[in-house]
């Protein structure tokens, strides 16, 4: 409707109207005086959520969280990264419980522009698929505080793995070597435990190599292994099909079986992105042999800064589905969101966040 009115008005009033709007825009620009933001070493935010769940037994509760991520130069070629999150949960009929998640804590050394070495807890995230990542080898047991089933939130909240990593980069590719030692500890759910027992239950290694073959093709090939397990090979590849569509494929293979995740993301000119992903797994990691993941994200839906996100994950073997939806609006520092999730039961989450 808005479009028809504007087209009719433009046809009637024509160039005079355009000149008037151009003049108004230039006058706004004349008055603009925003200064560039300065880079900060640390970004902190706080979040509070009210949760209402009904899975046959209604219950409600809440959560308050604080998240900090710092990344700065320590000295010369040395850099330090620290990322930590604290969640305090409470609910009807239960005592409050806190969970601290040490997400990352590592130092990085760069002797020259093509070699980087790191040591500490690092969140090494591999893979190109949106929801299921067969080549994201360090994801197991990494989420300490489950606050959402949204794949993006799960990636945000997960712990890194204690490891040493060396990466060399050249103009058309890179090679990464990782060794993550076994830590003699069991998973520990006490509030402030770094929980290395969860992320470093076995020693593991990874080699990842990416090379640009053509202008638009730079696949990554990986090989990983863990004590007591045979090695797995993996492949990540993406391709632009046209101005609005990206295709991706992620595949991993080992003695335990194949895993695959492949999909398409299409974006309309109205800022609506749609993803359809097919997931296949023989290793038991996915929780089903096959799943289909459909995802939609729409920015500025009628109102500027209002974003809508929804996804469905469908298991064809038993016709079960998980549905998650979110409406989110933000100002410069604060944001509000309403989330709805339907699995075995339904739950609502209302949350507010503030970036300092």
């Amino acid at each position, binding site marked *: 409707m*808005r479009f028809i009115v*504007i087209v009719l008005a433009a046809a009637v009033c024509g160039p005079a109207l*355009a*000149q008037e*709007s*151009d003049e*108004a*825009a*230039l006058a706004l*620009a004349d008055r*603009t005086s*925003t*200064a*560039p*933001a*300065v*880079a900060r070493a640390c*970004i902190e935010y706080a979040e509070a959520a009210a949760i209402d769940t009904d899975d046959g037994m209604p219950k409600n509760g809440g959560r308050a969280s604080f998240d900090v*991520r710092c*990344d700065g130069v320590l000295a010369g070629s040395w850099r330090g990264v620290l990322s930590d999150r604290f969640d305090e949960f409470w609910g009807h009929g239960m005592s409050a419980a806190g969970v601290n998640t040490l997400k990352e804590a590592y130092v990085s050394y760069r002797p020259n522009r*093509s070699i980087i070495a790191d040591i500490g807890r690092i969140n*090494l*995230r591999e893979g*190109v698929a*949106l929801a299921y990542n067969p080549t994201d080898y360090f994801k197991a047991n990494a989420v300490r505080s489950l606050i959402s089933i949204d794949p*993006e939130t799960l*990636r*945000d909240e997960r712990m890194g793995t204690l490891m040493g990593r060396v990466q060399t*980069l*050249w*103009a058309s*590719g*890179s090679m*990464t070597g990782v060794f993550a030692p076994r830590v003699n500890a069991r998973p520990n759910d006490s509030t402030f435990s770094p929980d290395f027992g969860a992320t470093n239950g076995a020693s593991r290694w990874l080699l990842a190599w*990416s090379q*640009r073959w053509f*202008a*638009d093709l*730079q696949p*990554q090939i990986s090989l990983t292994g863990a004590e007591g397990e045979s090695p797995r090979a993996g492949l990540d590849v*993406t391709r*632009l099909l*046209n*101005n*609005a*569509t*990206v295709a991706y494929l992620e595949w991993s293979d080992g003695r335990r079986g194949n895993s695959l995740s492949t999909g398409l*993301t299409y*974006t309309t*000119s109205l800022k609506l992105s749609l993803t359809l992903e097919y997931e296949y797994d023989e290793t038991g990691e996915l929780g089903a042999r096959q799943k289909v993941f459909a995802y939609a994200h729409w*920015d*500025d839906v009628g109102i*500027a*800064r209002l974003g809508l996100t929804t996804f469905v994950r469908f298991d064809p073997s038993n016709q079960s589905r998980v549905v998650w939806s979110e409406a989110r609006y*933000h100002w*410069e*520092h604060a*944001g509000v969101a309403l989330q709805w999730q339907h699995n075995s039961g339904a739950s609502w989450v209302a949350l507010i966040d503030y*970036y*300092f």
Partner: protein
Amino acid sequence: MRTLTLLAVVGLWGLWAAAPGFAAESAMPQPQNQARNQAQEILAASDAIRNPGKPFSMSVVLTEYRNSQQLDSNTLAIYSKLDAASGSYRTLVSYMGPPREAGKLVLENGTEMWFYDPASAASIRISPQQRLLGQASTGDVVTVNFAHDYRAVGSSAEDISDGDRIMRHCHKLDVEAASAAATYRRIELWVEQSTERPVKGKFYSESEHLLKTAYYRRFQTELGLERPTEVVIIDGLTPSWVTVMRYSNYAWRDIPDSWLQRDYLPRFRPE
């Protein structure tokens, strides 16, 4: 098998040669061809004013308005380098603010674009259509050589009012998309005749809708040339949606090729 391959190659070449664009180019009268070449040269000259030829960095503040009210302001650091082999720019965009966006990165390497979020350590391949910043698409923020991604198909003379409301004697160039990396189907670009400065652009979609109008203004000496340090973008459908892109902190920068790939994104820190 070899015969089949040969037939396929010959057949594909035949299809390409028979395509309308190819036929039109071959059959074009010489004066028309010369006019097009001249228009393309003007386009390239205006590119050279917008974009430094050596690797550089700069800051961009994007201020977005709706109905005269300021909505958002984003600061980006841009690192850009001309790829001699392809003739297009390779650009790394780093979000400096607001805090909600700080640390995020966009890499554009020809048609290859990646979005990186340090919170999740995730790199996601995106398409040129996937706009991230209000009205200004990533195609506006990254450095683009129009002469590389587009072809000037016509030129005429026209006097227009520039971003400072001063009348300028301009070439009006009719420009069409010529590569998959082109964000727009068609552009009308006004270039001042005496200086070859870009003055104004109108950008159209596949369906011939006016997507945006841009005014290039606040020319000042940066990296050895008088360059526009502000672009005012007016939404084509709703002209009360306005984005002001203001450039500052220009500097020559040594940008290694190894930075301009997905695997470097988790490593990147603004310098």
